[in-house]
């Protein structure tokens, strides 16, 4: 039996958990684990995704997410059920809980898997490296097998089953499980278009040259309801805040159009923007690697082209 951790934040389901279930079903019968009383409302939705049973773990101290307490809870239930494997989404929290679980059990953990199959007593897995620029094929031993599933590698597939049983579990938690305490939550104010969800991203790299150079990109972005992004060189130069950075160690974007201005496109940047539906490159260097991966390219100076686009849009006949 395969155990899948359903991730939620105060009762709001993380859809990456449903993607994880798509992979989990390829490995065997899947049962889901939901932790904390705020997850009590989730079984209805989760039961539509091909699971045979739901395990609810409730404890008076299981309120807000705490990785160590979640890992301890998961450990206790998985051990009672003798699960063959435990899976979570390869999200920030999913990977964190699995790391705690792996450390508790002193077992291997394969994070961000894109392919898993049984091979004898082991699993043969493919997992991503370099943010997705490289794939590692590996043998994963252990009982249970511990793994997380790369984000966006699978789609959530509804697969309703009749009579999904819901079982409540009690767990023992100790003070040590709560040494990391959440003291405050801050909801971000909706200021402008967010980079992660923007329909258009106007992004600048080394070619922009200065912090002031980004004013041209901002003007265009504002006009087309886009967000401004940048490459890592730009944040390292201090031209833009890190929250604007697109790439492996920044934000992953998936806009309808990504406009890459003066960005050469190292692999660490590419993994952050490759989910864009279309990519338009503006670059003076015809050999910039990002051009071969783009849909449209203009081989010219962004400082000339970007303001001209803005002017042309403004000047269209009314």
């Amino acid at each position, binding site marked *: 039996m395969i155990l899948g951790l359903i991730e939620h934040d105060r009762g709001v389901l993380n859809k990456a958990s449903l993607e994880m279930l798509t992979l989990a079903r390829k490995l065997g019968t899947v049962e889901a684990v939901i932790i904390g009383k705020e997850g009590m409302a989730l079984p209805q939705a989760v039961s539509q995704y091909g699971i045979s049973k739901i395990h609810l773990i409730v404890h008076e101290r299981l309120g807000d997410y705490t990785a160590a307490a979640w890992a301890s809870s998961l450990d206790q239930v998985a051990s009672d059920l003798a699960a063959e494997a435990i899976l979570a989404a390869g999200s*920030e929290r999913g990977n964190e809980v699995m790391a705690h679980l792996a450390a508790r059990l002193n077992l291997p953990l394969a994070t961000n898997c894109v392919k898993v199959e049984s091979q004898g007593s082991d699993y043969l897995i493919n997992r991503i490296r*370099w943010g997705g620029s490289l794939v590692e094929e590996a043998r994963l031993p252990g009982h249970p097998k511990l793994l997380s599933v790369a984000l966006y590698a699978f789609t959530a597939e509804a697969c309703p089953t009749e009579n999904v049983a819901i079982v409540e579990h009690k767990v023992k938690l100790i003070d040590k499980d709560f040494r990391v305490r959440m003291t405050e939550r*801050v909801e971000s104010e909706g200021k402008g278009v967010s980079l992660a969800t923007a329909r258009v991203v106007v992004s600048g790299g080394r070619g922009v040259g200065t912090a002031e150079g980004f004013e041209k990109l901002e003007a265009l972005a504002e006009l087309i309801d886009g967000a401004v992004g940048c490459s890592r060189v730009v944040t390292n130069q201090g031209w833009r805040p890190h929250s604007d950075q697109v790439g492996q160690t920044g934000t992953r974007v998936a806009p309808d159009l990504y406009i890459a201005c003066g960005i050469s496109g190292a692999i660490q940047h590419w993994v952050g923007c490759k989910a864009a539906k279309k990519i338009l490159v503006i670059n003076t260097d015809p050999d910039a690697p990002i*051009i071969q991966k783009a849909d449209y390219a*203009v081989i010219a100076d962004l400082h000339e082209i970007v303001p001209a686009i803005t002017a042309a849009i403004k000047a269209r006949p009314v």
Partner: protein
Amino acid sequence: MNILVCIKRVPSPGRNISLSEDNQEIITRNLGFTISPHEECAIEEALRIKEKCGGTVTVLTLGAAEAVEQLRYAMAQGADEAILLQTDGREWDPMATAQAIAGAIATKPFDLLLFGNESADSGGYQVGCRIAHTLDFPFLSGVKSLLVEAGKISARRDTPAGSEIYAIDLPAAISVKEGINLPRYPSLPGRMRARRKPIETSQPNRPPGGPEMIRLIVPEGAESKVEILGNDIGAVPKIVEVLQELNIVKMKF
């Protein structure tokens, strides 16, 4: 306040990754090496805490003899001491890495262990957590802001909806993400000093077991389908057409 920062030497692949013939490793002949980005920020954060609270900063890496380059860079930035757990250069899995590091620091009185959230290359998301468990330190990952005061840590991390603040008592282990700070460049006197500093070196035995890497695979890229719209300002009308086709700017009549 004694701080340990664990770092990893990684190649900077640039435009693409090429693999050795046996698909066991990246060809690094023509590549530079660097410290994994989140860990560069861990070093900077440690230096800032030291500047505020006093104490020492020690950097540690497990890797080939060449990783001395990254330890010296961190010392040039201001780290006081460095530890090299020297291997033959083959990759160690996260369990083996964590076991060797925990063993090497178990008897050293560190108040704070800092890690990068995940390494740039193998990206296992677990070495810091495993070390923390072995040494019985509380652990928090993904930290984007850190405040150390009176034996306590206040740490912020981002969520899709905003951010969360966590409280942790020292000693503790934290993994940080790029963006928590902007790392400094080493000064020239710093580089000179770092050249002369000793590096504590040992050669841990690689523990058996663990996951076994079979091979690396470069995912196939799609064939290029790029349409060159032009080489000068004359391309602008075509760009606007594209924006209209994609419904990003509305057609006006």
